[in-house]
């Protein structure tokens, strides 16, 4: 059984629909079935919805845990995966997937793999592809133990379309887990403008900005274009941008029409987050910066000179 696992919700998220695509491919090649597993406050709604994606079987575990700890989610995912007889468990490589994937594998006696970007079946063996060395190479990997608990990188697969159908849903009672881990405070991240992951325009800055003031310029440009501001890891480490703005392998995966990379060298780990961008515009003073290798349009200039002019040019265009 190929199991798509997640937190549920009223709709299947884009990431979940990408998992449907992976599951269908595997089920077809292995001659197995696809099931859906949701653990969360809206588990049942999502489990019912799964039927519309041609999924016949689902388990919903209504978990209302106020602690904010991940352990109750992991333990209940394990219960559900066992109930479904999972041979493969698919999770989105998102905030939950990162922390739950390997631990779920350990609890189920399986093997874990993170950030799958491709999968195929050869002679009955499932071969997973994942980026390694910050995306400078791709590794083909076979896992030894069952179930394979795999997190899938967002944007690597097409999202499945919704059709019609119904799933037989088992609603299970959640197992209570107390780990004495509690979230006691939550800060809201970015407030204004679109979410980075959904923005049509992203304006990102790196170490080349030389200080926090540069980010004000980027914010001005982003606002004019209805976009969001992003950052490289180096800019986050400098304290010029909050960690939520980080784009890349260990930050956000973005997929805008235009991605402005300002004072960013184009390290592979950064590029891992922008492969979904339609076009990259690179602004860098070094003509040999690797970012130009993936850019559609490039300007070799100090950003301090170009940005004010660019903001003016955009204002004129919009007026």
């Amino acid at each position, binding site marked *: 059984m190929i199991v798509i696992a997640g937190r549920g919700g009223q709709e299947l998220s884009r990431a979940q629909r990408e998992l449907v695509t992976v599951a269908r491919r595997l089920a077809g090649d292995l001659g197995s079935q696809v099931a859906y597993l949701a653990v969360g406050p809206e588990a049942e709604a999502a489990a019912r919805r799964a039927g519309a994606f041609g999924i016949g079987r689902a388990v919903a575990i209504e978990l209302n845990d106020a602690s904010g700890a991940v352990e109750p989610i992991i333990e209940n995912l394990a219960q559900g995966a066992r109930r479904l007889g999972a041979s493969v468990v698919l999770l989105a490589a998102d905030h939950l997937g990162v922390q739950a994937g390997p631990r779920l594998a350990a609890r189920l006696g399986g093997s874990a793999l993170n950030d799958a970007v491709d999968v195929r079946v050869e002679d009955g063996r499932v071969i997973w592809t994942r980026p390694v060395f910050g995306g400078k190479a791709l590794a*083909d990997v076979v896992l030894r133990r069952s179930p394979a608990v795999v997190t899938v990188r967002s944007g690597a697969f097409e999202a499945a379309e919704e059709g019609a159908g119904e799933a037989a849903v088992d609603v299970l009672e959640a197992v209570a887990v107390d780990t004495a881990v509690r979230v006691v405070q939550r800060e809201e991240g970015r407030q204004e403008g679109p979410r980075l992951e959904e923005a049509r325009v992203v304006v990102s800055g790196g170490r080349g900005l030389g200080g926090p003031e540069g980010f004000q310029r980027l914010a001005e440009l982003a606002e004019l274009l209805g976009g969001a501001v992003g950052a490289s890891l180096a800019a986050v480490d400098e304290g010029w941008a909050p960690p939520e703005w980080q784009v890349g392998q260990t930050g956000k995966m973005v997929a805008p029409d235009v991605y402005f990379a300002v004072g960013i060298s184009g390290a592979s780990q950064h590029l891992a987050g922008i492969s979904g961008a339609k076009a990259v515009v690179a602004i860098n003073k070094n003509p040999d910066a690797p970012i130009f290798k993936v850019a559609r349009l490039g300007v070799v200039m100090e950003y301090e000179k170009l940005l004010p002019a660019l903001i003016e040019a955009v204002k004129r265009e919009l007026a």
Partner: protein
Amino acid sequence: MGLHVAVLIKQVLDPEVPAARFQIDASGKRPAAGIAGEVLGPYERNALEVALQLKDAGAAEKVSVITADGQEAVESLRKALAVRADQAVLVDTSGHDDLDPAQTAEILARAVEKLGGVDLVVAGRQAGDWDHGQVGYLVAERLGWPCVSLVQRAELDGGVLRLTRQGPDGREVVEARPPLVVTVTNDERNVLRLPRVQDLMASRRQPITQWSPADLGLDAAALADLAGGEVLRLRIPERESQCEFISGDDPAEVAATLVRRLKELKLL
């Protein structure tokens, strides 16, 4: 009594090696030798800093660093000693094939147990070479301890750890009691400090505790059997786009051309 903190570190191929220089060796399964130097992994640096800050604050009494690797990793252990980690342990795995995360986690969990009295294990969120993102989590499962992930800062307050971490939408503060495993992600407050010159000198003379997997009760067969997967081959992805450079010295002119091209390409 302060905490005994164990930091799990890894020496990695310099992650900053440009993609253009990256090559695969004849086995097809690992990077070619000599394409770049090795460094203490970036997220392990953040993890070490989180532990050292607990020590600065008087919350940790002892910081031990552990790695499972060949003798070359002594260099990174010494770097940790140079920023005043108290003890360095190398579990020498040379002679065993490339370890996968399940094997590494078992070794490190056993090393934590052998050290004894460890209250808090701190690991990087992922190693900057194979990017598995598994070891810290698997160590938590193996020890049966809870795990708080993506932590940026830790403080101890009356026996309770207050952890600032990256939540799904923004920062969170989490309270937890040891024993605990945390995985660390970067922010501006956990950039690893620089060593002082005298500590750097002293670190050259400090002893490194050396264990073998056998010292931890793992013979070669048991270790091999722990592997969760196998790399069949590596390949280098194609990723080039033809960059159209907009040249000129006058920023206003260049900016106007850039905006015009973006519109022509229907990108704005």
